[in-house]
């Protein structure tokens, strides 16, 4: 576990050296502070995207915090959620930063076909044939690129077809 600097972990496993080096005297407005915070978060997201071990530790740590009621959330034993962090900037310059471009490139290069719905025309023609070995898989249940590091057997087309064909997505 690499998040040993957190106050909760310090309380659990013992204190570490405290460093308080933020003694600079530059006056920053609230709006600027908010924008800088968004840029900082974006850079850390890009850094996390390149460090799967830390990202995994962070996920586990946040789940444990919730389960152990360390974070102020109570009665939440196992409700796992995932959502992208929403960043805003008063200057709309977030998209032009190297961190944003780095993240966009990573997202664009990710094989996401497993998460895509099949084309509507294909569904309307014959929903039952969707995903049954037609070359281009249409969703993850068809094993286009199975979930990484899960280690289990790949899903079969039959299981995936059941998932795809009966859906009311219109």
């Amino acid at each position, binding site marked *: *576990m690499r998040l040993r600097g957190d106050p909760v972990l310090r309380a659990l496993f013992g204190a570490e050296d405290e460093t308080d080096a933020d003694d600079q005297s*530059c006056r920053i407005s609230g709006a600027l502070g908010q924008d800088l915070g968004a840029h900082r978060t974006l850079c850390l997201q890009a*850094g996390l995207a390149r460090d799967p071990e830390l990202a995994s530790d962070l996920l586990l740590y946040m789940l444990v915090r919730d389960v152990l009621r360390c974070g102020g959330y109570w009665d939440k034993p196992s409700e796992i959620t995932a959502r992208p962090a929403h960043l805003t900037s008063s200057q709309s310059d977030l998209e032009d930063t190297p961190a944003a471009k780095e993240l966009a490139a990573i997202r664009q*290069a990710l094989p996401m076909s497993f998460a895509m719905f099949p084309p509507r025309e294909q569904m309307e023609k014959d929903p039952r044939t969707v995903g049954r070995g037609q070359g281009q898989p249409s969703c993850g249940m068809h094993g286009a690129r199975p979930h990484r590091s899960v280690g289990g057997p790949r899903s079969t087309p039959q299981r995936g077809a059941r998932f795809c064909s009966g859906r009311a997505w219109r």
Partner: protein
Amino acid sequence: MLDFVQAELGGDQVIASRWRPTGANFFSRIKGADGLAIGREILGEDWAHRHCNDKKSPLCQALEKAFADGDAEIDGVEPEARARAKAWLPPGMGLGVAAAPAEEPPAEAGQLPAFLANGDADADGSTESEAA
């Protein structure tokens, strides 16, 4: 939480390698005196003396140039001061923690991280997690 993640990712370097203060995103949004004070602290008294009578716009341009990433040398700025400027972050963005030994440099556009680019690397990742 951000502080801890930033420290684990190598300290201020993870931010400084991806974001630099420019005239538009930072220096024009603080007072000129504060910009000059930052220049004095990071770039030295000589630099501050040369720019102490500047209007805000040229001062912002000079600060942007001095604090930008890259290998460009700035007249009258020592290499050590230039290195400090390239790593400087505004209050609240940096931890004041020295950069850890570099992990992976920011990748070029369109390039996936190694752990995502290779579909067969799963076993390694899971082994590490289990060992931890």
